[in-house]
């Protein structure tokens, strides 16, 4: 099994740092170094750095690039400025989700970068190519050539300026990026984005350059953070994870992400199905639930009414580190999705009461 796992360019460093490693999306990835709680708190209060080199980078260019990206993407890239980024999904015709992703509009006309989930790179690349008939575009999957780190937390701007010397990040607003060059003239992309609910940057560069930056940051005391706290942080910030809160079965509207689906666009794959869902309503909705007890709801646990009737299932749950409460996302019958609805989660042999609350559990601190 381990032989089949891919390694990121930072694998040796993870081993040197004594990380607890585990398979994730086909990669041997660090789950934690000093501990999930410690790493989580560093990102909330100071700064931490993540290896996210497993993420996929697919470049799309050509005369029809804008039209094509708008064809496969739920959000509207025609309103995007050069240097701007949009979050959205690629959908199947039935409204199910192929993947959720970021689209970067590059500084060169008709050039876009799609950043996709590691677990979906092959599927996405195939999907994109299969739907490019009739579009004059070049599709280039460069996932193996790019490393990526995420510097996240309130001190991330100062960290990137002081330790990596990229002064221009001060001028980046949320969901914009800049292009820089490394010493060999290689491309470096820095965006003010992240997956933690805090201010922060995602940096893309050659594998060698990413390793140099990582060693600089970690060597200077920036805390290395694993996928364990990446999940606790994104969860508190109300951000979905593909496979848990979005999937072939869970549409963006079910997940409460309708704002990223521009149904007034001329066309995109899945538009009709999403329009129908919007008009007729969806049968299931993703909600946040706060439990009255410290017991921890985990993915797959049943969500019930007081009489024991099952009305949903937990998709992600934790005892929230920043909020010290037991919280979960759950996909429930839409009739029980209103804020304040009393629901119960079955945890092993017992049932714990709670109520529906907003999914953004933690007040995010993005720089606008």
């Amino acid at each position, binding site marked *: 099994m381990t032989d089949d796992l891919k390694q990121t360019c930072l694998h040796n460093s993870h081993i040197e740092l004594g990380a607890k490693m585990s398979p994730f999306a086909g990669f041997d990835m660090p789950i934690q170094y000093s501990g999930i709680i410690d790493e989580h708190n560093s990102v909330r209060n100071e700064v931490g750095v993540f290896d996210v080199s497993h993420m996929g980078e697919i470049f799309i260019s050509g005369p029809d690039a804008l039209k094509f990206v708008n064809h496969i993407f739920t959000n509207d890239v025609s309103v995007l400025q050069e240097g701007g980024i949009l979050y959205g999904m690629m959908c199947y015709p039935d409204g199910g989700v192929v993947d959720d992703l970021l689209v970067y509009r590059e500084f060169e006309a008709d050039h876009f970068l799609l950043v996709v989930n590691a677990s979906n790179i092959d599927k996405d690349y195939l999907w994109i190519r299969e739907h490019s008939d009739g579009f004059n575009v070049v599709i280039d999957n460069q996932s193996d050539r790019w490393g990526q780190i995420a510097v996240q937390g309130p001190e991330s701007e100062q960290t990137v300026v002081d330790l990596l010397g990229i002064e221009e990040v001060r001028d980046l607003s949320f969901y914009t990026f800049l292009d820089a060059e490394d010493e060999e003239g290689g491309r470096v992309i820095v965006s003010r984005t992240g997956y933690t609910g805090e201010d922060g940057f995602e940096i893309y560069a050659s594998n060698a350059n990413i390793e140099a930056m990582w060693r600089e940051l970690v060597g200077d005391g920036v805390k290395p953070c694993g996928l364990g706290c990446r999940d606790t942080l994104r969860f508190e910030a109300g951000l979905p994870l593909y496979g848990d809160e979005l999937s072939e079965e869970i549409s963006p509207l079910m997940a409460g992400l309708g704002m990223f689906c521009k149904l007034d666009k001329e066309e995109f794959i899945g538009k009709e199905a999403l329009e129908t869902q919007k008009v007729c309503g969806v049968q299931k909705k993703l909600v946040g639930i706060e439990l009255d007890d410290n017991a921890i709801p*985990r993915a797959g646990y049943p969500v019930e009414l007081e009489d024991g009737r099952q009305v949903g299932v937990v998709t992600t749950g934790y005892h929230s580190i920043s909020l010290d409460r037991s919280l979960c996302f759950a996909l429930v019958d839409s009739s029980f999705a209103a804020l304040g609805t009393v629901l119960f989660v079955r945890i092993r042999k017992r049932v714990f009461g709670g109520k529906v609350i907003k999914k953004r559990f933690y007040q995010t601190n993005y720089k606008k």
Partner: protein
Amino acid sequence: MSKIVDGLLYSESHEWVRIDGNIAIIGVSDFAQAEMGDITYVDMPSEGDELTKGEDFGALESVKASSELYAPVSGKVVACNKQVEDSPELINEDPYGSWIIKVEMSDSSELDSLLDSVSYEKIAA
């Protein structure tokens, strides 16, 4: 290398047992707490519950995962450690000082199938 204390008995599922007359005092080993990481919740049985050796009687939850606790002996739960229930991190800090439950054993011959510290060291390496 995880810490193993002489004089205790161990189960293959990483519980430790300290014998005090007819009472088995039960916790989890240093190996178990290290594997789990930060423990945030203890799902305790109730006093008076009857346990059967090998069956689960509760669970420990870390940030990331839950892990069942298995009864190393059969008997009646006579005490639950309230301190550990209120502060689960005590198990990480001092796994052998942080007992979870005390059980009045119904069949002390079951102890024979548990491991001593030397045998346990082989599976908790």
